[in-house]
């Protein structure tokens, strides 16, 4: 009996998965004869989907799903990447929680540099927190209408990195008097979740404000199904977005 093996997932190259107006995506693998098929509407791609021929321009929030196919090999898994359009560009950010020296990123400013494009948590863009929460105050530069707060976080359970349990936000006009804006509980991580950048979104009643204090809650303890059950869980965040 001859075993059959899969093609590896397409390699997604992009300057950023979060953007103000548009971003671009290219797919590659370096395997002779490989073809890529993709969707942007959330449906699962197959060989009847759009065939990739040139870099794709993305102008709205969407999910890219891409498949690699090559003769003699089984199709790849579906590579899934979320892209998020965020209206406001923060001018400053302050961390209320200490940075872990093992995963300092480029300091607090990593959270507003919009360089979210890699699940490599050593890329220098990710801030890591071991069994502690992250609280940061984002300064939007002027008072604006705020409806959505989006956090870019890493889900990579093989590396003990888990989706946050909860995200909460407070909003202020002066940077000192904050009012509660809302909170959202996120679904618990499961064993089947792939390694990817996730963009959980907190929707709030439209609020005018300049400063947004965001707390991203670590689940703190590795869940029971994981081989590290009971240990300290990591939270990795690389962007806080306001729209």
């Amino acid at each position, binding site marked *: 009996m*001859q*075993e059959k*093996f*899969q*093609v*590896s*997932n397409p*390699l997604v190259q992009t300057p950023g998965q979060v953007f103000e107006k548009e971003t671009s995506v290219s797919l590659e*693998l*370096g*395997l*002779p*004869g490989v073809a890529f098929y993709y969707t942007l509407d959330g449906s699962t791609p197959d060989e009847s989907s759009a065939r990739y021929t040139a870099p794709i321009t993305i102008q709205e929030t969407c999910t890219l799903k891409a498949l690699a196919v*090559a*003769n*003699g*090999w089984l199709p*790849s*898994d579906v590579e899934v990447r979320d892209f998020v359009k965020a209206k406001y560009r923060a001018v400053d950010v302050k961390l209320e929680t200490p940075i872990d020296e093992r995963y300092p990123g480029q300091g607090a400013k990593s959270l507003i540099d919009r360089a979210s494009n890699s*699940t*490599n*948590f*050593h890329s220098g863009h990710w801030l890591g927190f071991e069994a502690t929460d992250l609280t940061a105050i984002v300064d939007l530069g002027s008072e604006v209408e705020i409806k959505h707060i989006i956090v870019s976080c890493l889900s*990579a359970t*093989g*590396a003990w990195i888990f989706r946050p349990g909860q995200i909460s936000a407070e909003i202020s006009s002066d940077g000192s008097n904050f009012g509660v804006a809302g909170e959202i509980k996120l679904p618990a991580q499961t064993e089947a979740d*792939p*390694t990817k950048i996730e963009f959980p979104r907190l929707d709030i009643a439209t609020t005018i404000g300049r400063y947004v204090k965001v707390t991203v809650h670590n689940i703190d303890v590795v869940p029971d199904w994981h081989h590290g059950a009971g240990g300290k869980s990591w939270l990795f965040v690389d962007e806080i977005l306001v729209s």
Partner: protein
Amino acid sequence: MKRREFIKKTATASAAAAFAPALLGCSKAVAAPKGITLGYNTHQYELDYHWGRLDPAMTPVNDCHEMVQDARKRIVLLTNETKNNVIIYDKSGKYLESWGSEYPGAHGLTLWNEGGKDVLFICDYERHEVIKTTIDGRVLMTLPYPADSGKYKEAGQYKPTESAIAPNGDIYVVDGYGEQYVMRYNHKGELLQVFGGRGEDDHLFFNAHGICIDNRDANNPIVLVTARQKNQFKRFTLDGEYLSTIEVPGAFVCRPVIHGDHIYAAVLMSQAASGSKSGFVVILNGENKVVSTLGGSLPEYVDGKLKPLHQTVRVFQHPHDVLVDNDENVYVAQWNSGKIYPIKLNRV
């Protein structure tokens, strides 16, 4: 060498006849209707996926961490399955014997010929110890955590992943899952020196996962240490003085394995797709340049710099060690890959 060249040419010719369209204009290995060939250039292999499959009810494996070949040409596998930590095969994949139930964190396996007799060094990161045994499992010496190094407050900080033995019998141990130090002992197990440690500097590590003695220049053996998180091997003198770094961009390399003029290493996963069963194998030549990958991208140097490597086909999930036997065939042991037995690749 001449025999090797002859065999290679013959094999390439027959492969080209069968799969001419795919091979035209490049040396890339592609899927074959019968049999799968992996690799590039001088190092191409045909997959023998069913080698060494045993009955998991009788002789189970968990993570297959490392392999060596003993003086009797047998294949010795180390797994963290405590029903049988060590499984010994012949080269055809036939089970010969197994032993060991006291190595829950069995991770590093190193063979040393001591006065004509094979001995093994097992690094156990859960026991926080290195254990020297006979080839049939009798314990000869245990190196506990290096309390007198002054680097450790308690045994739990010390998680040794690999050992290497120098020509004079000195024992080098890397604390790859712990504090990233390299311990050097004499053959009696007396601590001589500690170097390395965690950090960004040239002589420091993030995940000093593997170590070997690079004796390709017999007059000038050096210590080669994996810096896995940085996708590098770092070269040191036997006295622990940093010399230089070998870059393997894109590849989370495990321990370096010296065979002939080449370095072979399992790649746990690709930087480009970390966390998704994206491993492969790399082979470096005598100039420490990557000449082939098994299941990975074609190595390409631009202005002397290797373009980042990545997995292209998922033949392997998480390779953790390679063994090259005396017939030039390769065996791949894998971590966290569905308790799969080692995979053999026959050189073509």
